[in-house]
């Protein structure tokens, strides 16, 4: 039994301190994900609270055979989808071809474009990535964040999003190239 599973078991027995430990462990990864998905600090904190409450109320449905982090982020991802659906924001289907207005998204190397990253210092690259990230479709942004901000494996992301691993790998790659192209254009 993992540490998370033990904490969940204790929380199910009514030990609220155990659930507080879960919150403290996951508050940063969850808000890092949500802030980049919503683009708003306060909204990210509100969503994170709602997601932790939702997770607490559904703790009985958690199976210790699975990773708690994957289970929690599945709740978070579904929470965001529900929110966007209610607000009727346009969403991008992962099954549709992507046209971001800059031509096809399957570049081969060697790329004739000059080096994008080496023009900047690392800190500036990070800032430019954050700005570029805000402009890419949310379905691609989410997979990129889960992979590189939350450090989930491709298999875990596939589990969270109920997608084939190959699709996840390809979409994360497309997200990276979208970011790179936007950086080159800025």
């Amino acid at each position, binding site marked *: 039994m993992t540490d998370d599973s033990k904490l969940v078991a204790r929380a199910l027995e*009514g030990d609220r301190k155990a659930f*507080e430990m879960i919150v403290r462990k996951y508050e*940063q990864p969850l*808000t890092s994900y949500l802030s980049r998905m919503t683009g708003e600090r306060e909204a*990210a904190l509100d969503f994170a609270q709602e997601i932790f409450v939702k997770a607490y109320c559904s703790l009985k449905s958690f199976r210790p055979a699975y990773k708690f982090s994957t289970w929690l982020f599945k709740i978070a991802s579904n929470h965001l989808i529900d929110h966007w659906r209610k607000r009727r924001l346009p969403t991008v289907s992962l099954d549709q071809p992507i046209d971001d207005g800059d031509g096809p998204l399957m570049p081969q190397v060697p790329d004739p474009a000059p080096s994008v990253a*080496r023009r900047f210092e690392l800190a500036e690259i990070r800032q430019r990535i954050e700005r570029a990230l805000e402009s890419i479709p949310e379905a691609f942004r989410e997979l990129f964040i889960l992979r*590189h901000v939350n450090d989930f494996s491709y298999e875990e992301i596939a589990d969270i999003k109920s997608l084939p691993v190959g699709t996840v790998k390809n979409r994360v790659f497309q997200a990276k190239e979208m970011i790179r192209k936007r950086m080159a254009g800025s």
Partner: protein
Amino acid sequence: MTTCPRAEDLYLYLEGELGAHETRALKAHLERCPACREALADRRLLHEAFTSLPPFEVPPDFALSVMARLPEPAEAGWLAPLVASAASLVVGLLGFHLFTGASLSDVLVAVNRFVGLVIARSLPLAAKAFKVGNLLLKVASDLVSIAIAGLEVFSRSIGPQGVGLILGLGVLLTLLAIFGARRLLSLGEKT
């Protein structure tokens, strides 16, 4: 690898997600392709930035604010069943009153009489069951003490060698029975 690799493979290589065969082929290609080396260096910098984006700064009281929003756990144990029973009784009484038209005080008197009758009938029965149980226990304890006394007399009459012999025979018979049973089971599996 004669043709240049896909950009996707460069990222997978940097993440350590490329298979061993593909990694060898990519390395061999990089040695003779300056354009791909350049592309890889660019992606390496990007990859480094992707994997070191700053985390969100969470307010120090965030966890406490989450805990304040959690619903209170339901009182465990006796309270919930007690409340449910009381509620069922009230609903039952009201239902009876509505369907039969009898006044609530009549219903309560009737319920009281019924409960009294049940107790009056069940108490003598419970007392008889208790007496019979007590008698059975006494008989069983007498039987056990007679058996122990008989064993003591028997062991004294056959002496310590006889007791040892009987114990040895008992162990031998038990082992033979276990061995025989295992053999029977294994034969069953083979067939």
